[in-house]
């Protein structure tokens, strides 16, 4: 058996790294208060609490017969009202999803199956288009706060969450109640009505797609609008709903609207009770606190909470607390991810400026509370099945956008946003992630502040192009009559999805439907189906009918690839339309809708097109770079050079080029793989596959094929209309899907071996294959028109030495500018020495706070799964910019 590093074909460094491992240039420390809270976070295990689902379900049962919306509003009110208040020492910004630091709750009215026993699930799984096949190949992280194993007192659920054994029997009872009633089961029943449902089941069994989004993670990748609650306060929102009920109650056609307003009132009342419980708890803690200073902190906290439970905020601290309460209420209401704060620094700025001018807050105090806020966001958890957990990689995708322009087109940067960046520099936390909306009108000092943050290695800010964002909105939301002001107010929802703004009362805000849809199509698998005549070669599942087609030309093969790609997208999107519309009366987002312009005024939640902009149904893809590379290899080797035949290729792919599968070696990058059969012909073919043109080198041979893949994707996606009558949207990023989907793929014609993680992002070259320097990567990445896609994504790994000092900062900024000027949308960086990552993999206990950028999000290294860790180590490291 022969271990190989594959470095005769691949180069994992571009340039020569310094002899000694080099740490990041910028290293700061969190303020004492945030440092203590961060330590508490590091010590905390991810924990499930049953209070919310218990009271929701008990009230739902009791209220049978009510209008579905009213019934949901009452259930929501009950669930929020019964949550416990948990305030921890050293907190100034308070409230958590439930009593635990890293607490989550299962929402069984949405997804009720995964907590049930394997036997119970198995009864349905045989006929269900389920995540089971995906879960089998998903490898999850085991470090940090993950509870991967059960103890006598605590059960490990979905290999990530800890649950008290005392609560498990009740949770199972609750999940059984929701059988055949939940969104998950409703989706399944409706999905079966599609004439090609059996093909869909085979798609899922072949892992042609990552997890189901229609119930598991339907809402999110959106931006919360705080202007509404900041203007009216919770009581003002309730009063507005009451006014609208009074004005419409005599209209017989307005029943659903009245029900919506009444449900919203109930849900907000539940939140008010929850906030007041916190106020009471703060008062109680003040009464037993012996430390005079801490007593004052508790008293101020109690007064702030009591005020915001009804009223609009009067100052920065009240506004910050109220925004956080809104974030939590949305996460508790739904099983979703990526409810982003958007342009939070710009929304909060007027409150802060007034306080600073008055002298009621200092910059140091602001920084302290912003660091504490970062810990709060980092604590957020959502509970999903193992398959979805693998995709999300434990992140909740809360994105704060900085910079950009105001609705009038002038620069939007402000001093508070500098403090947002400084808080991320000081406090090593994963969330909220930061994105700078790059625009030529931003000051050099502001951009340099962003670079300083990048140099900490925390992976943020990501850089996104304002021009592309605005152009995307104007082009893709013109069908909904978007205004230039709203387009300028755009923001990133989730890790990267462009969401149009919704200027509210002349202020920057948000108001669009969630980015929801087909959660990552496994593009390399489609090429496998082409080569193996419709059969998935890993599972032997027949996905498409046999044709026996022999390909005489590359174009013929490409035509079949495009036809399959289109068919896969069509079936996924059509069934998604059917399935989600069947759930619109089951788990409506009442509170998130109330925080989206213009739902309350229209009398409709976001599932009933209440938002100002609704063209957001989205299909994402993963592995398109591997696919373009594989197609280039086939074109060159099989059709141009006749170096081997398609049958020879298929044979060698099935035999993994003579190597052991990554699933058996446990190594998931091309850096370290093990050969067990030395066959000279297989070796020859592998060498030719590896040497074929690769995306990321400014090579038109392969870049043109990449464009064809992207065009086919866009056309197929837009060919289908969503439930609101708009075209579906196309999106290219990977999140954590390049791990599990790679594990479900056999070896590919680009030379990648079976089970090895795919290329990350949308335009990131495959690790070790980009050998012509960073500007060649940027050239390849801009061969497509980025304004056609809801997002695109490029990751780069820079050695800290490559951007050291002022000169290094200037070079990095030049590179970003060049990318944006050439039409790129998004670029993000890992600034790290790969040898440090290798050491961290071997000695995780020495690196609890090490952060890395994955694909659209930052994560603690120890909470990243091995397949993604291996890919991060292997990503090409640039020694010079």
């Amino acid at each position, binding site marked *: 058996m022969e271990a190989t590093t594959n470095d005769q074909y691949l180069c994992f460094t571009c340039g020569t790294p310094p002899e000694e491992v080099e740490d990041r240039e910028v290293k700061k420390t969190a303020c004492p208060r945030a440092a203590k809270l961060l330590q508490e976070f590091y010590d*905390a295990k991810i*924990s499930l609490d049953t209070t919310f689902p218990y009271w929701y379900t008990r009230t739902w049962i009791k209220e049978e017969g009510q209008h579905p919306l009213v019934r949901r509003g009452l259930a929501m009110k009950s669930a929020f009202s019964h949550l416990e208040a948990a305030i921890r020492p050293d907190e100034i910004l308070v409230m958590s999803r439930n009593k635990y630091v890293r607490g989550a709750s299962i929402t069984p009215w949405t997804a009720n199956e995964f907590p049930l026993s394997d036997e119970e699930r198995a009864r349905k799984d045989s006929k269900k288009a389920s995540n089971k096949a995906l879960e089998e190949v998903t490898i999850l992280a085991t470090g940090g706060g993950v509870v991967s194993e059960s103890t006598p*007192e605590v059960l490990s659920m979905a290999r990530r969450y800890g649950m008290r054994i005392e609560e498990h029997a009740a949770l199972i009872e609750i999940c059984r109640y929701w059988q055949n009633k939940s969104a998950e089961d409703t989706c399944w029943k409706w999905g079966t009505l599609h004439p090609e449902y059996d093909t869909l089941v085979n798609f899922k069994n072949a892992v042609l797609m990552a997890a189901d989004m229609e119930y598991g993670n339907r809402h999110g990748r959106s931006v919360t609008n705080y202007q509404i609650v900041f203007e009216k306060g919770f009581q003002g929102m309730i009063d507005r709903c009451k006014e609208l009920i009074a004005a419409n109650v005599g209209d017989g056609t307005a029943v659903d609207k009245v029900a919506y307003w009444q449900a919203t009132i109930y849900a907000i009342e539940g939140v008010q009770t929850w906030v007041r419980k916190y106020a009471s708890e703060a008062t109680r803690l003040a009464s037993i606190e012996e430390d005079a200073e801490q007593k004052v902190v508790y008293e101020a906290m109690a007064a702030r909470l009591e005020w915001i439970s009804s009223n609009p905020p009067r100052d920065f601290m009240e506004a910050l607390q109220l925004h956080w309460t809104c974030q939590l209420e949305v996460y508790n209401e739904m099983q979703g991810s990526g409810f982003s704060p958007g342009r939070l620094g710009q929304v909060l700025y007027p409150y802060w400026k007034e306080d600073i001018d008055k002298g009621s807050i200092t910059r140091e105090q602001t920084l302290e509370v912003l660091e504490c806020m970062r810990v709060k966001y980092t604590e957020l958890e959502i509970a999903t099945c193992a398959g979805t957990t693998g995709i999300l990689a434990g992140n909740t995708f809360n994105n704060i956008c900085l910079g950009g322009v105001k609705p009038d087109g002038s620069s939007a940067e402000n001093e508070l946003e500098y403090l947002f960046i400084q808080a991320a520099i000081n406090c090593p936390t994963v969330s909220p992630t930061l994105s700078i909306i790059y625009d030529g009108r931003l000051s050099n000092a502001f951009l340099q502040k962003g670079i300083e943050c990048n140099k900490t290695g925390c992976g943020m800010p990501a850089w996104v192009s304002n021009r592309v964002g605005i152009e995307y909105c104007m082009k893709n939301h013109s069908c909904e009559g978007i205004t230039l002001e709203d387009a300028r107010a755009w923001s990133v929802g989730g890790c990267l999805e462009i969401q149009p703004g919704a200027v509210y009362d002349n202020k920057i805000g948000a108001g669009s439907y969630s980015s929801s849809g087909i959660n990552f199509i496994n593009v390399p698998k489609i090429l496998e189906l082409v080569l193996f005549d419709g059969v998935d070669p890993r599972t032997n599942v027949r996905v498409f009918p046999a044709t026996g087609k022999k390909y005489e030309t590359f174009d013929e093969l490409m035509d079949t690839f495009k036809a399959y790609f289109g068919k896969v997208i069509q079936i996924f999107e059509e069934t998604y339309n059917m399935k989600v519309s069947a759930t619109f009366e089951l788990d409506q987002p009442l509170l998130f809708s109330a925080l989206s312009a213009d739902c309350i005024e229209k009398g409709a939640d976001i599932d009933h097109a209440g938002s100002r902009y609704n063209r957001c149904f989205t299909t994402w893809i993963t592995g398109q770079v591997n696919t373009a590379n594989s197609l280039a290899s086939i074109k060159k080797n099989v059709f141009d050079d006749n170096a081997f035949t398609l049958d020879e290729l298929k044979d060698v792919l099935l035999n993994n080029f003579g190597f052991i599968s990554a699933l058996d070696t446990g190594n998931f990058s091309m850096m370290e793989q093990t050969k067990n059969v030395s066959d000279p012909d297989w070796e020859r073919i592998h060498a030719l596959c590896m040497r074929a043109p690769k995306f990321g080198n400014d090579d038109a041979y392969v870049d043109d094929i990449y464009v064809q893949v992207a065009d086919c994707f866009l056309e197929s996606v837009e060919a289908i209309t969503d439930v609101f009558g708009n075209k579906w949207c196309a999106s290219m990023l990977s999140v954590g899907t390049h791990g599990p989907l790679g594990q479900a793929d056999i070896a590919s014609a680009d030379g990648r071996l079976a089970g090895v993680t795919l290329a990350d992002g949308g335009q990131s070259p495959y690790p070790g294959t980009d050998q012509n320097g960073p500007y060649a990567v940027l050239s390849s990445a801009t061969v497509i028109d980025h304004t056609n896609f809801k997002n695109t994504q490029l990751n780069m790994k820079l050695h800290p030495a490559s951007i050291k000092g002022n000169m290094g900062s200037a070079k990095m900024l030049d590179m970003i500018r060049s990318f944006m000027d050439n039409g790129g949308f998004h670029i993000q960086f890992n600034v790290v020495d790969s040898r440090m990552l290798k050491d961290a993999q071997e000695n995780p206990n020495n690196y609890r706070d090490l952060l890395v950028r994955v694909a659209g999000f930052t994560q603690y290294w120890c909470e990243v799964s091995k397949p993604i860790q291996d890919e991060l180590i292997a990503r090409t490291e640039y020694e010079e910019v």
Partner: protein
Amino acid sequence: MMCDKCKDCTNLSARDVFNGVCLISKETVSIDAPVCKKFVRADKCKYCSKYIASEKDSNLGTCDGDMVYPDLAGCEDFILAE
């Protein structure tokens, strides 16, 4: 016989399903640790007069016919059992 633990005390701020911080001592404690002299019983269903324990499963009970579980935080109708 049911023994009180730190998880049953109002002075516990639960960190996770294993540990918490005692708000009196400010120390980390196991939520399964036996209680100290400063213990103040939290309102939980298992201490409520309406709670009827299930004979089949010690982790389930009923309250006015509705399923409840012993460690559920007490609701607004909580009345301490005799």
